[in-house]
């Protein structure tokens, strides 16, 4: 990646305007419970969940080149471990979600160790097999309802807040935090010394290795970090749904295919890409989800079209023509 040219007047001013617009949107979202209706809040919670999942998949695929089609493993583990910790270990809900994510990160170490034995496209399918192992195993655990799943007891759900409105507000802010923090965390990471290593790996892995980047260790660390945050999101998603089944928790389409779609259409390998992708995805869904199979066929078609027309996605195409940057991560010499 070449360094961003900050000296060009037009680029910087448009970037600044975009940043201000984004800041205003986030400020508006921060007080959404004041202005938004119940169904709008519900939609926004989903948007934040998918934003976090997309940022994590992008961090993994866009920067370390690890194409995983098995991230549903971590969404499902997050959900199931959250239910188990809340129902059987008696942890308060707000502690059970991060605790489940930490446990998932621990599980991700041996699974990653196995998956890392496969390279490139084989890694992709290998992660899928691992996710299937978790799905089929979850269906075997009788205490968690086996194949038909389990619901979160009403008493537990009510421990979040007394009124229904209160519970929705708490849930909204959990989603808001997970979504916004995922963007800030990736941004912070990319501006750190790790970010230099990640960008180097993204641009050329052999060159990064030659410059002294411990590529395997960096990739592994990112894999575990993505597992943690994906699981955190998964825990929240199933707190919102209040019911979990193996097929819903470990759904390839829901938690990986749609997420890949978001990242790729928005623009892989940038922080802005997944943000744009989430907006496009939900806009399309609001318009077309009633079309059923045709909606999914259209999504498949769009994914193919993006690869044929411009595989850098919307943000990549914009970046190639302008020098816009909402989340600057490059260092520039004047």
């Amino acid at each position, binding site marked *: 990646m070449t360094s961003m040219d900050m000296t060009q007047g037009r680029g910087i001013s448009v970037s600044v305007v975009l940043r201000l617009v984004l800041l205003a949107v986030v400020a508006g979202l921060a007080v959404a419970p004041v202005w938004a209706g119940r169904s709008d809040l519900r939609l926004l919670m989903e948007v934040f969940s998918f934003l976090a999942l997309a940022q994590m998949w992008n961090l993994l*695929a866009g920067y370390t*080149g690890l*194409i995983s*089609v098995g991230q549903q493993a971590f969404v499902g583990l997050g959900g199931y471990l959250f239910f188990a910790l809340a129902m059987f270990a008696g942890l308060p809900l707000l502690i059970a979600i991060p605790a489940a994510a930490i446990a998932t990160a621990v599980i991700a170490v041996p699974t990653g160790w*196995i998956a890392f*034995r*496969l390279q*490139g*496209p*084989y890694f*992709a*399918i*290998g992660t*899928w*097999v*691992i996710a*299937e*192992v978790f799905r*089929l*195993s979850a*269906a*075997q655990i009788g205490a968690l309802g086996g194949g038909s799943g389990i619901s979160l007891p009403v008493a537990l759900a009510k421990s979040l807040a007394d009124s229904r409105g209160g519970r929705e507000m708490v849930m909204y802010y959990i989603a808001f935090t997970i979504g916004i923090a995922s963007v800030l965390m990736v941004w912070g990471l990319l501006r750190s010394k790790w970010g230099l290593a990640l960008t180097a790996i993204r641009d050329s892995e052999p060159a990064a290795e030659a410059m002294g980047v411990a590529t395997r260790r960096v990739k592994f660390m990112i894999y575990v970090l993505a597992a943690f945050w994906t699981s955190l999101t998964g825990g929240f998603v199933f707190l919102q749904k209040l019911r979990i089944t193996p097929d819903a928790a470990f759904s*390839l*389409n829901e938690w990986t*295919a749609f997420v*890949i779609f978001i990242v*790729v259409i928005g623009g*892989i390998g940038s922080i802005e890409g997944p943000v744009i992708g989430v907006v496009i995805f939900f806009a399309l869904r609001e318009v077309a989800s009633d079309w059923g*199979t*045709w909606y*999914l*066929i259209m*999504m*498949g*078609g*769009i*994914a*193919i079209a*993006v*690869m*044929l027309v411009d*595989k850098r996605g919307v943000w990549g195409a914009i970046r190639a023509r302008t020098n816009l940057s909402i989340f600057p991560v490059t260092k520039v010499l004047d």
Partner: protein
Amino acid sequence: MVWINAIVQGVLLGGLYALFAAGLSLMFGVMRFINIAHGDFIVTAAYLMVALVTGLAVHPAVAVVLVLIALTTAGYVNQRILLNRVLGKDILPPILVTFGMSIIIQNALLEIFSADSQRLPAGWLETGSIVLSDAVAIGWLPLLMFAAAVAVIGGLQLVFYKTPLGRMLRATSDDPEIVPLMGGNNAHIFAIATALASLVVGVAGIFLAMKTNFDPSAGPARLLFAFEAVIIGGLGSLWGTLVGGIVLGVAQTLGAQIDAGVQILAGHLVFLALLVVRPRGLFPKM
């Protein structure tokens, strides 16, 4: 004796898995890419077969020929006009394009044939068997499947190592940049490889249609079985793929013997265990 029977059935089931895997192995061998929609193409072939035989009352032998011609042609055209455009050093585009195809195929099948599961009635093939003892019997269909797998892999081996086409395919596999300098046409060679792989996919789909019930969402599981057989056997080894299929088949039937619910899980676990012990597979070539 039930265990011996489970192993025998597993070996025969392995033939079907080897048929699933051979096409995948061939495409990776020549082009270094994995077709995520591989399983969905197998299921499409199965649907075509059912539609021809039960829907249009075509004679089964004619239907087999038609399915194989359709798949081979579709494979060539698909590679030529679509997949060739996304092949390259970046592994994401081919994964994403075939992922997109997978979603399109599954939903198109759902739209056309509904979610009801289907099966091709195979008459005496389905019910007839060679009885070896009161606990062990070999069905004609599984036996035919296994024989077909051996024949297909033997045939591919022959094409690869004894024909000018095979020499071209191996040369492209070794170094796709040099082949055009020698007068080869990569776009055409890749398309031929996919056509050949699709022919095998057609054979696999026809057997799938006779062997089990299937529905529009049956593809991904078939892709995973194929993938596991390829990795267990060792990349680039066609006979290894047959052994990989057998290992997977036996793992699944033994798992089913323990508990019907763990059949598929047992196969996945054996695959992961072998990946830990022998990451390059049983018969690595590459």
